[in-house]
């Protein structure tokens, strides 16, 4: 069998798409929750209270300091063993990606907030805007504009990093690809190239439009 035939043999392609769906599901859910929690974290990082800011900062650094893979192992093996709670690989993956995404998102939100010049606040106040109006009409719209391209970039990073979850036994697209390659090791030795090319293309189809979109946005808001 030729390599490319393997791609479409039996239900192989459907299985790949199924794996891709797992990737997308993990990504979408963790990105969605990270977005909400990240806004809260980012807001918390700009409050006056030093203790609150310090706690947020520690959280951010602790999350960042370790590779995502280590977090996956800690949550999947560590927590499962030590507490006896039986966590599926996918659930563990979502937890880890949410913890990581929240930290990064929070830092982006904080950065966007403090990048709004002081005079924007004062100009708004001097016009007689109340606090809610000031944030609703002046500060938050500008924050969102600055934030959107960065959020999209982070999202593509998260989508790509989900490839790691195959290492805790989640059959996402990469894992499915490996299974297909292994199953055809003898009758189609060059299948690997084709399968990985297909996977590359799938990631590309998801991430490239996002990158273009974020580039467009950041040019527009420049």
């Amino acid at each position: 069998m030729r390599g490319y035939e393997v791609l479409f043999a039996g239900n192989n392609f459907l299985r790949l798409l199924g794996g891709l769906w797992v990737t997308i599901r993990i990504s979408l859910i963790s990105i969605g929750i990270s977005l909400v929690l990240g806004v809260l974290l980012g807001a918390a990082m700009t409050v006056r209270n030093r203790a609150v800011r310090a706690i947020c900062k520690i959280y951010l650094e602790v999350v960042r300091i370790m590779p995502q893979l280590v977090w996956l192992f800690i949550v999947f093996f560590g927590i499962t063993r030590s507490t006896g709670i039986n966590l599926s690989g996918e659930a563990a993956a979502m937890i880890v990606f949410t913890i990581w995404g929240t930290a990064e998102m929070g830092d982006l939100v904080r950065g966007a907030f403090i990048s709004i010049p002081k005079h924007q606040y004062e100009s708004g106040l001097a016009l007689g805007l109340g606090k809610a109006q000031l944030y609703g009409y002046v500060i938050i719209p500008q924050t969102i504009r600055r934030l959107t391209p960065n959020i999209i970039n982070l999202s593509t990073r998260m989508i790509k990093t989900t490839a790691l979850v195959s290492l805790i036994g989640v059959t996402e697209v990469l894992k499915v690809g490996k299974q297909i390659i292994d199953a055809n090791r003898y009758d189609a030795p060059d299948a690997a190239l084709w399968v990985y090319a297909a996977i590359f293309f799938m990631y590309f189809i998801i991430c490239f439009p996002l990158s273009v979109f974020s580039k467009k946005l950041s040019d527009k808001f420049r």
Partner: protein
Amino acid sequence: MNEDIVIEVKGLKKVFGENVIINGIDLTVRKGETVVLIGPSGCGKSTLLRCLNGLEPIQGGSVFLHGEPVEYGKRSLNKIRQKIGMVFQDYGLFPHMTVLDNVMLAPLKVQKRPKDEVKTEAMALLERVGLGDKAKSYPSQLSGGQQQRAAIVRSLVVNPDIMLLDEITAALDPEMVHEVLNVVLDLAKNGSTMIIVTHEMAFAEAVADRVILMDGGVIVEENPPQKFFHDADTERAKKFLSTFSYSK
């Protein structure tokens, strides 16, 4: 109480940390008056203006607008600020809104006036400062001078009782200074009440009804422009003015 008094400052004191920036200032501005405030950089001119519309907490004395106390952090402040127009050195236009939306924001959202009426007035004012064709542009598409004129219109459109202009041409290229200051001169001629901080001495002399020199946290001299610029009472004023003239 005198109906004519727009702003009254009594014994104002402002401290940043250990630095006393304003150390007992009294100031009265009447309706239709244009007061020019000058002084060396860092003497507290901006801080004084910011105290007048409650952008800064004060550590002593009091500020009244039409007899109503201006108090930092109070709810009543929003009402008071609607009657005080403020224009900053770096324009402070909102970059995500068109010029027209910038101008219409306060009358629509703060004063809650009808949209048609506000739009007509906003357009008329933009025409008046030569920005009629820029209404739909975003601030980043305008020159500094145009942005500053738009910012003036934005504070003007709410019909404030007094305008505070803080070095509004300091960030502009020389050729744009003129177009902005002409707008201000026009306002003065039409009876606007203003406090103007500026380093443009020729403009100050032309526009002022009264000139105030601030230094060391107090008012050093206060005189009509003719007297102040040509026959100042204090040595401090003469010395300050001499920094604006050159001879070889």
